[in-house]
C-alpha cells in the first residue's frame, strides 16, 4: 500500500489496527528458534515524550511497590527494572530545542550537531540539529554480529505513532542515526505509515509472478533508476560545493532504492504468514483521526515490530510514540485530561499536573499492554520478552522544566540476555544514561562504555548478571 492510498485511508477512518492478536495467532514458532533451539536476541528502544511526574513514577527508595504511573506494569513486575537516579547525558545550558537536544543526547550520548538555518520565528532554540554519531541502537547493531540477521534486508526498524514531524527536520523525531557522515549523519526517519511498513516487511509484491515476469519487472525498475541516476550525476557536476550535500543525500536514497530491487517479502522458507491488518473502528465523533488513531497506530506499529522480531526479519527497532513537541490532545481520548492544549502545552502548564500524570500513565499502559502480549509468546524455554531487551524512556524528566535529573527510565525483559529483572535499581549518584548504555554494551561483550565521557560516571553494576 502506498503513501497516497494510506493518506486516503486515514481520511476514511479505516486505519488498520489489531495486527497483534490476529498475526500472533497465525505464526509458527520463530524460524531461528525452531532451527537452532536458541532464539535470537533483540533490542527495542521506545520513547515517549514531554516528561513525567517523577514522584508518581518512581517508588520510594528501596521499595519495589509500583507507583501510580507505572501501576500497569504489575503483571510484568518480574520482567521489570525501574532504573532510578540516571541523568540525561547532556548539559541543560546547551542552546537549542530542549526536547530535540535531549532525545539526541539520550540516544547518542553526545551533544547534537547544528545543521543550517533556523525557522522563521528566529528563536535561537529553533535551530535544526542532528546527532553527531551513531545512536545506541545502531551502534550495537554495527558492533554485535548476533544482532544482525544473516542475509536480512531490513537491518532495523524505526517507526512512530505521530504524523507531524515538526518541520520534517530530524531534530525532534529521529531516534536513530547510523552515524555515517553526511548531511544528516545517517538520520533514520521513523515511519508513521504502519500499513506501508507492514507491506514492505511482510508482503511479497512479486507473489504469483513467474521468474521471467519478476525479471522483466526488475529490469523496468532498473531502467527508471538508471535514468534518474544519470540525471543526478549530470546535476551533481554542475552545482557549487555548497549544494553538493543535497545531492549526496539524494544519491544515498536512490542507491537504497536500487538495493531494494531484490525481491521483497519474507525470506523464502520462513513460515511467517502474518494475517492482513484489521481495520480500526471509526473513532468517536468529535475526536480527530489524528488523536483518536494515535494509540491504535502505536499498537499497530509495536505489533509490526513484534512480528518482524518473531519472523526474525530484524532484531533491532526503535519506536517513538510522539516527539517532544507533540500537539496530541489527550482530553479527546481521556476526558479526565481536561485541558484544551496539546501534550507539549500541558507539560508546560504547571496547573495541569494531573493531566500530565494521566498522559504519561496512558503511555505506560500502552507499553505494558504491548509487552504483556510479547510475554505471552513462548520462545525457547521462556518467552519472547526474555529474548528482547526493551528500554522505555522519556526525553525529559519533568516536562515543564526540561530537567535532566533522574530520567524516568524502565528496562523490561531480556532475562535471557542477562538482565537482572524484578528490581528497583538505584544507580550510583551522578550516573548518566551513558552509564546504562555502557552496561548494555558490556552485556554484549563490548567495552562497557558509550557516548561522551564527560557525561559518564563509570561502570554501572547490578543491571546484568
Amino acid at each position, binding site marked *: 500500500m502506498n503513501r*497516497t492510498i494510506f493518506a486516503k485511508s486515514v481520511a476514511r477512518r479505516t486505519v488498520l489496527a489489531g495486527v497483534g492478536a490476529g498475526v500472533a495467532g497465525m505464526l509458527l514458532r520463530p524460524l531461528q528458534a525452531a532451527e537452532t533451539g536458541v532464539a535470537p536476541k533483540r533490542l527495542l528502544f521506545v520513547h515517549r515524550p514531554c516528561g513525567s511526574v517523577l514522584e508518581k513514577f518512581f517508588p520510594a527508595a528501596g521499595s519495589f511497590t509500583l507507583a501510580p504511573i507505572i501501576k500497569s506494569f504489575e503483571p510484568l513486575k518480574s520482567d521489570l527494572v525501574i532504573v532510578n537516579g540516571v541523568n540525561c547525558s547532556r548539559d541543560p545550558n546547551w542552546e537549542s530545542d530542549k526536547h530535540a537536544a535531549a532525545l539526541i543526547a539520550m540516544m547518542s550520548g553526545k551533544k547534537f550537531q547544528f545543521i543550517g538555518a533556523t525557522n*522563521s520565528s528566529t528563536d535561537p532554540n529553533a535551530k535544526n540539529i542532528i546527532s553527531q554519531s551513531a545512536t545506541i541502537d545502531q551502534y550495537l547493531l554495527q558492533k554485535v554480529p548476533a544482532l544482525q540477521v544473516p542475509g536480512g534486508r531490513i537491518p532495523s526498524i524505526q517507526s512512530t505513532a505521530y504524523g507531524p514531524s515538526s*518541520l520534517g527536520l530530524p531534530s525532534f523525531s529521529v531516534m536513530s542515526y547510523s552515524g555515517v557522515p553526511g548531511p544528516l549523519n545517517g538520520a533514520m*526517519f521513523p515511519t508513521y505509515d504502519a500499513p506501508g511498513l507492514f507491506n514492505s516487511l511482510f508482503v511479497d509484491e512479486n507473489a504469483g509472478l513467474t521468474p521471467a515476469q519478476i525479471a522483466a519487472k526488475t529490469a*523496468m525498475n532498473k531502467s*527508471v533508476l538508471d535514468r534518474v541516476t544519470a540525471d543526478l550525476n549530470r*546535476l551533481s557536476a554542475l552545482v557549487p560545493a555548497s549544494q553538493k550535500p543535497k*545531492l549526496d543525500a539524494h544519491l544515498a536514497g536512490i542507491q537504497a532504492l536500487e538495493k531494494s530491487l531484490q525481491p521483497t517479502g519474507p525470506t523464502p522458507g520462513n513460515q511467517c504468514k502474518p494475517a492482513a491488518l484489521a481495520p480500526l473502528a471509526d473513532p468517536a465523533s468529535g475526536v480527530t483521526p489524528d488523536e483518536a488513531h494515535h494509540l491504535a497506530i502505536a499498537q499497530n506499529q509495536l505489533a509490526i515490530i513484534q512480528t518482524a522480531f518473531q519472523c526474525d526479519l530484524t532484531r533491532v527497532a526503535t519506536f517513538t510514540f510522539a516527539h517532544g513537541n507533540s500537539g496530541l490532545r489527550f482530553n479527546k481520548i481521556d476526558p479526565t485530561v481536561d485541558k484544551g492544549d496539546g501534550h*507539549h502545552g500541558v507539560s508546560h502548564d504547571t496547573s495541569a499536573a494531573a493531566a500530565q500524570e494521566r498522559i504519561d500513565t496512558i503511555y505506560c499502559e500502552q507499553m505494558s499492554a504491548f509487552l504483556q502480549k510479547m510475554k505471552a509468546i513462548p520462545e525457547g524455554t521462556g518467552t519472547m520478552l526474555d529474548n528482547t531487551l526493551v528500554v522505555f524512556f522519556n526525553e525529559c524528566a519533568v516536562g515543564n522544566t526540561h530537567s535532566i535529573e533522574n530520567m524516568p527510565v524502565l528496562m523490561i525483559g531480556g532475562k535471557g540476555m542477562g538482565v537482572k529483572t524484578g528490581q528497583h535499581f538505584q544507580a550510583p549518584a551522578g550516573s548518566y544514561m551513558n552509564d546504562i548504555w555502557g552496561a548494555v554494551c558490556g552485556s554484549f561483550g563490548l567495552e562497557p562504555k558509550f557516548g561522551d565521557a564527560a557525561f559518564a560516571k563509570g561502570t554501572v553494576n547490578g543491571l546484568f548478571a
Partner: protein
Amino acid sequence: MGLRIAACIGWLSVAAAPLLMGACSSDVTGGNHATGASNSGGTSSGGGSASVGGSVSTEACTDGVALAKARIWRLSDAQYVNAVRQLFGVTAGPHITQVEDVAEFTNLSELSPVSNNTIASYQVAAKDIARQAVASHFDTFMACGTSDSCVQQFVRNRVARAFGRRLDDTEVAGYVDVYHAGLTESPQMGVRLMIEATLQSPSFLYRTELGTPTPGGPKGQVSMTPHEIAALLAFSLTNSVPDEALWQKADTGAIADPVVYGQEVDRLLALPETKANLTQLAGYWLGIEKLKLTEKDTSPGKFPEFTPALKADMTLSTQLFVQDLLTTGTVTDLVTSSKMFLNESMATAFGIPGVTGTEMKPVQVAAAERHNGILSQPGVLAAYSRPTRGDPIHRGLFAFYGLACGGQVPAPPATALAVAATFPPDSTERELAGLRAANPVCLACHARFDPLGLITERFDPIGRYHETDANGPVDQSSAIITLGPDLDGPVNGVAEFTAKLVQGRRLSDCAAQNLAVFTLGRDTVDVRADTSCALQSVKDAFAKTGKFQDFYKALITNPGFLKRDVQ
C-alpha cells in the same frame, strides 16, 4: 504544522523567555536601530537587528549585488502537486513526501536534505501518478504515435517542461531506452516508465539557480539562464512550473529582456494562483498558519464559542484580509485598516452589527477597537493566545518581530522555566508580566516585548473586545523601551502603538524584510542581517508608495533578484 515549533519555542519564552540580563542588554545596545543609520553602500554594518527605523536614502544600487546564492531548491509538496497537475493532468497529494509539516520551511532552499524515506516516497508517488496519467491521457501524450520519433517528441515537450530546461540528445536517447524497457510489456508501460523517471529526477525535484557567469560582473557571480528565470518567476508567484506563455518566452530567451520580463511579472501578479500563493506565504508572517493550529479550551465557562465553524470563519476572514491587503492595500493599512471580512455568524460572535448572510464580505467596522488592521483581526489575536487564557508574551513577540523588527532576542536561560514555576499560578497575565519585569532573570528580554502584548489586553483569547471586566476598565497601558525613539515611551492601547508605528520607515522596512524571506527563499536571520544596497533599494521603492504590489514588483524586478553568488 510548521508553526508548532514556533509555538513550542515561543512557549519556552512564555514561562521563561528572557535571557540573562547581560545577553539581552548587549543586544539592545549593540544592535538597535531607528537611529537613521544609512547604509547605502551595500556593506553590512554587522549587528543582529534590521535596518529599520529612521529614514534611509539609498543611492542607486549599481554594483550588481546578488540577492541569493547559487543553489538548487527542492520543490515543496504543494509545488510538486501543482506541477504534476499542470504537466500530466493528474491530481496527486496533498502529501507526496512523508514530511507533512514543512510548510513554514517551504520557502527555504537550504533546509531538510532528503532522507531515504523521502526518496522512497517520491518513487511511490511517481509510480502512482504515472499509472494514472497514462490511464487517462495516453492518447494525448502520444497523439503523434508510438514511433521513436514520437517518443522523442514527448520527451522534448513534456519532460522538458517538467525539467524546466531543454534536454540534450544523450538525455533524450536515455528516455527512449526507458520507453523501450517498458515496451516489452506495452507502449503504455513505456510511457509510464518515462513519467516515473521524470518525476524522480533531480532535474524535476530541484529548481536550479545556477546561472552562467555575469558578463563583466563581479567574480563568483552568475546571472540566471532564461529557463531559470522563468522557473523562478513561476514558482515565486504561482507556486508551480511556468505556464505555456512563460515557457515560450524562456525557450526563445525573450524573458531575459527586461521589458518582456516586466510584462510577465505584471501578468503573473494578477493571476488568482499568485494571490493565493502570496497570501499563503504572508500567512506565516501574519499568524494565519498559527491560527490553523490553534485550539481553545471549549469547556463551559471557558471558550465554548470557539467552535470549529467559528475557527474556520476566522481563518478565512484573516486570509481574505491579508489577500486584500497584498493586492490593493498599503503598509499603513496593515496596522490601521478598519476593514474586516465577515459573515453574519462571525460578525455576531464579535458583536459587529449589520452583517447578514453566510458569505464573507468586506465591512468597514465602525467600532474604534477594530481600526488597527492586522492587530484587530480576531484570528490573529486568537492565534497569539493560549487555550485557556491570554498571552501577552506571544502577542508581544508577534508585534516585536513581525511589525517593529526589534533585534534578535536570545534564547531563554536554562533557569528560566524554574523561575517561572515560582510565580503564583493564579496570577493574571498583567501580574505575571509584572513579575517578569521585576525578576532579573526575565527582565532584560521580556521588558522588550511584553509591553507590546500588554496593549492588547482588552482582547480576550478568542479575539473579542472587553473594555471592562469584573474589576473595572481593563488596563491596556504599558511602556515601550529599547525599540528606539520612534516607539519608546508610554503607550495606552493598540491604537496609540500603531499611530506611532506608521510614522517613518520602520513598519515599511520591517514588512519588506519579513516578506522578502519567503520570496527570496532565505533564512530570516540572514535577511535581517542583509544590508546590501540591492535589498535596501527594494525597501526604498516600497517605502515610496507603501503598496504591497509595489513591494513585489520592486523585489522581483530588482537586478539582484536574477543574480546569484556562487559559493
